[in-house]
């Protein structure tokens, strides 16, 4: 049996035992259902369907929650094992360091996927039932689920990078929280500050929009709001960007770059590390 698959199986079993899967599903599902029920009020006013409203609400929620869950899953994936001593023994077996990362990463991806499919999917089913079987906006919702998974994958990859760079678990969690704050809160605040200070004198709106590609959470917002633009209004920072500046292909390529770069870097660093 392939070493990646063996490790993935083990990590999934760990995920089930330490309640990561169940808690992620409950967290995402519970909040999604709550937001759907509370957020269903404006559907009559803005003439939008419930699923589109849910996409906007869940996009705002996912930007905070998905990176957090991804970091919590991955920050100690390698440094934790290194600290406990299990990594030393594992690497004496016929398994390469790249296989160790791929095995763990694919298990964490699967956990995220399960949480999103069951949590967000369950919420969508409730929405459709409440709307008497009306499933319009379902495609946008599916795109939102897929992009949430992609967003999670990017932050998992960043978590693995952190886990390979640092030497201690306590440092890893500090760096992960710092990175979460930068990507989810501070980056947007800094951009807003620059935008207000500059008054579009030296930074054009198109350049400003391009800057958003430097943050996967903004890309995620742009992606989802592009899908539903016109059907509802949005008030997030991403809503201020000209969403037509990016094609779907551009956004997907940027997503892939954001996923691949930290993962490749993590593998490179891990391969060079001496235990």
């Amino acid at each position, binding site marked *: 049996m392939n070493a990646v698959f063996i490790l993935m199986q083990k990590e999934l079993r760990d995920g089930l035992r*330490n309640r990561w899967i169940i808690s992620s599903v409950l967290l995402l599902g519970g909040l999604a259902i709550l937001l759907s029920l509370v957020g269903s009020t404006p559907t009559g006013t803005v003439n939008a369907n419930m699923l589109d409203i849910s996409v906007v609400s869940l996009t705002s929620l996912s930007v905070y929650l998905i990176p957090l869950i991804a970091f919590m899953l991955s920050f100690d994936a390698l440094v934790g094992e290194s600290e406990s*001593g299990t990594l030393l023994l594992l690497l004496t077996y016929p398994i390469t360091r790249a296989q160790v990362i791929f095995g763990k990463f694919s298990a964490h991806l699967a956990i995220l996927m399960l949480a999103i499919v069951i949590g967000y999917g369950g919420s969508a089913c409730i929405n459709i039932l409440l709307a008497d079987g009306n499933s319009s906006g379902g495609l946008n919702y599916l795109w939102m689920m897929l992009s949430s998974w992609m967003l999670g994958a990017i932050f998992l990859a960043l978590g693995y990078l952190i886990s390979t760079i640092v030497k201690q678990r306590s440092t890893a969690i500090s760096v992960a929280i710092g990175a979460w704050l930068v990507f989810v809160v501070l980056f947007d605040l800094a951009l807003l500050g620059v935008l207000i200070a500059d008054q579009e004198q030296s930074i054009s709106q198109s350049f400003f929009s391009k800057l958003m590609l430097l943050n996967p959470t903004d890309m995620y917002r742009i992606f989802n709001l592009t899908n539903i633009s016109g059907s509802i209004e949005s008030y997030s920072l991403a809503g201020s960007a000209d969403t037509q500046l990016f094609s779907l292909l551009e956004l997907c390529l940027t997503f892939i770059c954001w996923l691949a770069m930290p993962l490749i870097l993590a593998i490179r660093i891990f391969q060079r590390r001496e235990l």
Partner: protein
Amino acid sequence: MVKSDLLSLSNISKNYGPDRVLNRVNLSIQAGECVVLAGHNGAGKTTLLKLILGLIKPTEGSVSVLGQDPVNKKSVKAKRSLGYLPERVSFYESMTGLETLKFYSKLKSEPVSQCAALLETVGLDSSAYSRSVSTYSKGMKQRLGLAQALLGDPDLLLLDEPTSGLDPTLRRQFYDIIQQKCQAGKAVIVSSHSLVEIEAQADRVIILNKGSVVASGSVQELYQQSDLPLSIQLSIKSGHEQQVEDSISTLAISVQKQNSILTLECKPADKMEFIKQIADLGDIVKDIQIKPPRLDDVYLHYALSGLSTPSEQPSSDATSSDKTIAETHS
């Protein structure tokens, strides 16, 4: 027929930053050998084992396990032929003992059906198979650790301080298993502080000091090379103590007198001459007891005395028949 080496280290050095933790170590091991790596903490034993396992790369020199470089990610054959028990073995706490062994068995592409039998071999109680590893005692973890090291009946077993912190019964079981493996033609490298415990199993002892091999050979060779004095106790007829002392004073390094008992030390090379002189004294000497130096004294002699030992002389052939395979260059 000339046996090929299972393991060959050639002029291995390892630096961590400016510090040299291993210095030009040569070592080759053949099937069926039990080699004991001895040395104080920080002497370089664990680093040497990590180099063999391919966990770290040598700064200089080369490592070959079954003809493969263990650092190379394609050296699956080398990794399958190794079994390793770390000094402080750690397992995934959420797994049971049997699950742990099955997990490692799959990684080594070995049938999981052998796992229960292996746990029985190392003496783990069957009631513990389905218990979480987090509930295991130190001894149980060591047993599980030994079981995973034995997976796939590896050609080369690397055991890093395997009996540290274990009770005497368990230690005995560990050494019995090591002996069985050697008799079955497997090579074993044991890193240990206590030479006395493993003296019976050791075909060769390699003593490391500050990253260099300061002594290498069989236990008997180490005794001879150390040239440590013998302790001789003479029981003398009352009133003749001074006479005896005078007659042997030229050969004795030190003499202690307590009532009618003389305790002396002499060089091993002078032993026979010493005995002759005692015999010449006739029945003045009622009894004689000769005690060779203890193995721990031999170990301490090498471990603490630096690099000035007979094995310092470079060997031209690392696999020479006299088994003096390690050479050091200060």
